[in-house]
């Protein structure tokens, strides 16, 4: 029986291993460790973990977790990573980013579950996690103090249902929260309970007071606003998962502009390729490019943020994670273990393929 390290080594040594063509330095992220990527992973034996890999695509460690995780965030100090269990998430893990060693395992508060995402304050003290009070179906931001062993210290109300991704505006004060609008309850698995009455929104919140300073709605109430990213210039991009029938093909991306959501729709063929479902959106910090990935459609796109003009498109089955690469390109991960580089100027290039299933987001 091989252990995990042997397995990874064997896979890397095999013909299926890597062709590492010019995987350049990562851009500096808001925190530390720009040379390390991490993601939740599924393993071929049916178990789950969180894995980190270096600039060459080499796995550095795989930290086992009890159930499937979704995404996480980097703590800007103390070399820590936080990963949240997949919705309904009953806990999050705090890991040493260098070794994968588990430092804390924090359970959700009674009556609440996490939904897969969180973000730190710029000083790394406060962790803001999207969560749901599932009996009344209320979306909240749960605030934890990382300096006090991740004690729960505060709760901010979202006055809405189904928050998902959260990020911090470059002003360091404003949280941007994607409110999906979909009511779920752990008793009913992931069943969507309110598709007719959904009220998705982009919410802007003061991270100190919890005051909601902006609430922007998409053009259609079934545009579940699930993911978002903020460019260092402050431009906010959001991505939808449309809950209507598949043959409807509305816009799936939008940019916040003049306090409204300006929606971006591509040609019909590209929209069909996105299959009404975007799993990640990333605005490149070095330029005006934005990338998005749809695992359902097996399509990744790169477009110009300011105009919405489509610049590149690639067919990558089960692609989901997106991260910005230094130099202006993007890295896409897939549930089939692939890492693919894509940019506006040249065709997508396979960087690596590992015997792991990259789960949703690159962190």
């Amino acid at each position, binding site marked *: 029986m091989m252990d995990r390290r042997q397995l990874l080594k064997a896979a890397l040594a095999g013909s299926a291993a890597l062709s590492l063509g010019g995987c350049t330095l990562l851009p500096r992220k808001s925190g530390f460790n720009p040379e390390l990527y991490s993601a939740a992973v599924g393993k071929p034996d049916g178990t789950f973990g969180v894995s980190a890999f270096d600039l060459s695509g080499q796995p550095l460690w795989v930290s086992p977790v009890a159930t499937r995780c979704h995404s996480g965030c980097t703590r800007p100090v103390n070399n820590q990573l936080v990963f949240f269990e997949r919705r309904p998430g009953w806990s999050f893990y705090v890991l040493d980013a260098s070794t994968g060693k588990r430092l804390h395992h924090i359970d959700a508060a009674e009556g609440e579950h996490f939904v897969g995402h969180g973000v730190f304050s710029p000083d790394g003290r406060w962790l803001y996690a999207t969560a749901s009070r599932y009996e009344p179906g209320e979306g909240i931001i749960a605030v934890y103090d990382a300096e006090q062993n991740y004690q729960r210290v505060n709760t901010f109300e979202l006055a809405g249902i189904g928050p998902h991704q959260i990020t911090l505006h470059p002003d360091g004060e404003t949280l941007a929260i994607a409110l999906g609008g979909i009511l779920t309850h752990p008793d009913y698995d992931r069943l969507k309970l309110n*598709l007719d009455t959904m009220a998705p929104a982009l919410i802007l919140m003061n991270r100190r007071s919890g005051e909601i300073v902006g609430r922007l709605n998409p053009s259609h109430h079934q545009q579940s606003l699930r993911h978002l990213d903020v460019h260092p210039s402050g431009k906010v991009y959001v991505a939808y998962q449309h809950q209507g*029938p598949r*043959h409807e093909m509305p816009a799936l991306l939008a940019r916040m502009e003049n306090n409204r959501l300006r929606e971006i729709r591509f040609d019909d063929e590209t929209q069909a390729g996105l299959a009404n479902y975007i799993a990640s959106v990333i605005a490149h910090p070095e330029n005006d490019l934005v990338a998005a990935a749809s695992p359902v459609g097996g399509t990744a796109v790169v477009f110009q943020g300011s105009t919405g003009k489509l610049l590149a498109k690639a067919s990558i089955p089960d692609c989901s994670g997106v991260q910005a690469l230094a130099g202006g390109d993007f890295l896409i991960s*897939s549930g*089939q273990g692939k890492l693919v580089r894509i940019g506006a100027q040249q065709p997508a290039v396979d960087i690596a393929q590992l015997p792991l299933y990259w789960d949703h987001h690159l962190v």
Partner: protein
Amino acid sequence: MQPIIRAFCASTLAVAASLSFADAPMDGPQNTRAGWHAAIQSGYDLLAEETTQLAEHASSYCTAPDEQLRAQLEQHWRDAFMAWQQVRFVDFGPVENNNLAWQFQFWPDPKNLVARKAGYLTNSDQPITADLIEQSGVAVQGFPMLEYLLFDEALSNSKNALPAPHSCALLTTVTRHIAENSKQLSDDWHSFKTPYLNTEAYQVSTLKSAMAALEILEEKRLAKPMGLRGNGKRNPYITDAWRSGTSALSVEATLRGLQQHFLPEFLKLLEQKGEAPLAQRIQRQFEAALDNFPGADRPMATLLSDDNAFRTLQGLYVDVSQLTTLFNDQAAVALGVVRGFNSSDGD
């Protein structure tokens, strides 16, 4: 190491096949969908007929209950439930509206919500109305609730046993709810024909729906109760329809539904892709799986407790498992269908 290599190769092949599929669309995909549409329509029409009869018989029984009507009512529940099993694989299109699939059958039910909700409703003074059922959630609105009222042992020995008025009210109201949903589904599927034929994405949706149904059949409806997964213990209560003893019969109905409503066009599709030998193997494997019945048509509890019966169930499991492999590995690759770790997640 071997399973990993296999999984890895399969995914690599799937990528290649998917790319080539993008370049060379299938011949006559609209014809294929036209065939599927008609076949599924016939399945939905049957469901609408059976559930209408069920509602009528529930009403007759509760008006003048006797043993004969009760036996007929139970048989009508089985007929309607099996009609649902035959179209249960369709997980896209109108059946997604208002969570209809979940309304028909809330399962799995690890917290026994059906019994809890039934207990609440039958013991409450609140009148059982269509509105109440509408608001009570999917655990109340479908076949499992009726199954509980008709077949649950504890209930049948209690003061709330049918034909107790409140239980009868629940029975008749839920049967009407199911009949209305079935009629709606049949009508909506009819209206869905144009977008279904005109939207290529529904080709893959249809293929994936059958593949997912086989996977659920193999893993959740057979392997888990048989103790082949998890803690290794046999457990008849984690499969569906255990109260009525029709778990295995419902497996058969799902297989027959796939055979009748999905397989003919699927086999043609494989043949058009130059995969006639694979099409023949799949056809034979369907027949082999269905040959296990009626040997396996006993309650799951019996099939799991008796070693001879368990061997029959094992035979069925092996046949379904081989069928799933033929579909989800070989045919999926041949047709460029990728069922992903992320794409099936929903976040």
